[in-house]
């Protein structure tokens, strides 16, 4: 509609069919597929890392007064730092490598997971740990089979938020740090003055975010609600 008005020239505001053509062309010459594959691989590794690190940090802070008091305040203030600010540090440490991108992704999302895990462990009724110990679970087994599953409803919000942050950090990182991926495709659209491609890639980024949220997290959430008998999301 807006495009039809011809207020802006098509190279600044392309009509929908132009965007569709770009999408089609991108998938046809495999450049979109490759970019999606590269980005998904990065996010999978980066997100997995930040969940593991975040859970470990959260548990550490939940069980140690010293860690909580030293790291606790720092983490909350660090969360106000846009994740892309970690890129210069990442490039200096790791050079222009995959590691640098992963570092940005992890730094962007690890804090959400950490904070959720920590507060989850604090809210967790003591009875689960006691019942677990009573039935012979201790140490790592107690964590793996009792404390972790017990805190999942509390952790879920953090996991979702962490995913969103990770995805954003990744795209931002890829835009600046040119080496394949959806972010780079977006920048290529800018460099070639191809607004249709820019919009097509933006649609892709949103779509992937939506699909992951809808397929993975919603299913997970429903499963959790069914098991625990919760009526609404945590």
């Amino acid at each position, binding site marked *: 509609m807006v495009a039809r008005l011809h207020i802006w020239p098509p190279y600044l505001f392309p009509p929908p069919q132009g965007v569709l053509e770009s999408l089609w062309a991108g998938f046809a010459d495999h450049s979109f597929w490759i970019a999606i594959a590269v980005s998904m691989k990065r996010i999978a590794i980066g997100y997995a890392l930040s969940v593991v690190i975040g859970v470990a940090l959260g548990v550490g802070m939940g069980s140690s007064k010293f860690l909580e008091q030293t790291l606790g305040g720092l983490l909350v203030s660090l969360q106000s730092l846009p994740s892309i600010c970690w890129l210069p540090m990442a490039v200096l440490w790791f050079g222009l490598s995959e590691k640098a991108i992963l570092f940005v992704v992890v730094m962007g999302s690890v804090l959400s997971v950490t904070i959720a895990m920590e507060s989850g462990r604090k809210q967790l009724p003591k009875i689960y740990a006691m019942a677990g110990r*009573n039935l012979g679970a201790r140490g790592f*087994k107690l964590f793996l089979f009792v404390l972790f599953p017990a805190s999942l409803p509390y952790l879920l919000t953090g996991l979702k938020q962490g995913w969103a942050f990770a995805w954003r950090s990744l795209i931002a990182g890829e835009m600046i740090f040119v080496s394949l991926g959806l972010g780079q495709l977006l920048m290529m659209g800018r460099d070639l003055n191809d607004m249709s491609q820019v919009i097509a890639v933006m649609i892709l980024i949103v779509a992937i975010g939506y699909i992951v949220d809808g397929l993975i997290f919603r299913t997970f959430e429903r499963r959790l609600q069914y098991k625990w008998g919760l009526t609404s999301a945590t």
Partner: protein
Amino acid sequence: MTTSPQRVQSAGDRYASSRLAVWPTSGVASARSMQTAVEERTPKVALQDITLEYKTNGSTLVALDRINLQVKAGEFLCIVGPSGCGKSTLLHLIAGLQRPTSGTILIDGKPVHGPGTDRILIFQELGLFPWLTVAENVEFGLKMKGIPKSERKLKVGYYLRLVQLSQFADSYIHQLSGGMRQRVALARALATEPDVLLMDEPFAALDAQTRDLLHDELERIWAETGRTIIFVTHNVREAARLGDRVAIFTFRPGRIKREFAVDQPRPRQIEDPAISRCAKEILGDLREEINKSLEQEYRVS
């Protein structure tokens, strides 16, 4: 040891059998003879001078004061007392979840140093795991013990049948009624095959009919499995209905005021006049302590 027919079944028989236990016709006689046979042996649980103190803002609260108590193997001991007398805490101490300030807890003559699956506590709040199904809850203790999967399955099946919850094996906890949850907790505790079962006011939150039903079931399961049970309650009738012996606790500091043998044949009924008479006698002793606890409550508020 003279035993009822169920007790001489081999373990394999027990798990494989889908038959639910019924009381032996000679149940009364065998329960009697078992008690006399057990008397000479070392106590299953022995508490020696157990004292527990809490320090709060400089003042010391004595929760438990030199508790001495012995429980024989296969005995059903009930502990009654006003709320706040430390009777639940005593179970936590025996379970090894908490340490006494002084004194020793002996199981079969060996001191307790922490939690162990020879003693399983059924919490007042149950503490069932909502992320696991009924069967997985029952399986939990076995998994922690490292028992192989095939054996776990047999045991879970057996104990679910014992508490009559086989059809609910795949249900989640929130889908069950209060009485059913209670039975899951019982099955979960029994599945690890503890020598001593510690029960902390397990039936307090249930309606009267469900409670009566669970009393019958618990008595049957106790007879069938031969466990030693220490059962804490504030319900005097419940104590008289279930216990071989009832220990009455004083209010703050918790001491044993009196021990009371309930010499009644089993299976019992809560309506038995003899049970009512016992309950009345225990209540007479307990009333004074309840009054003390109420007085303190009013003074605080």
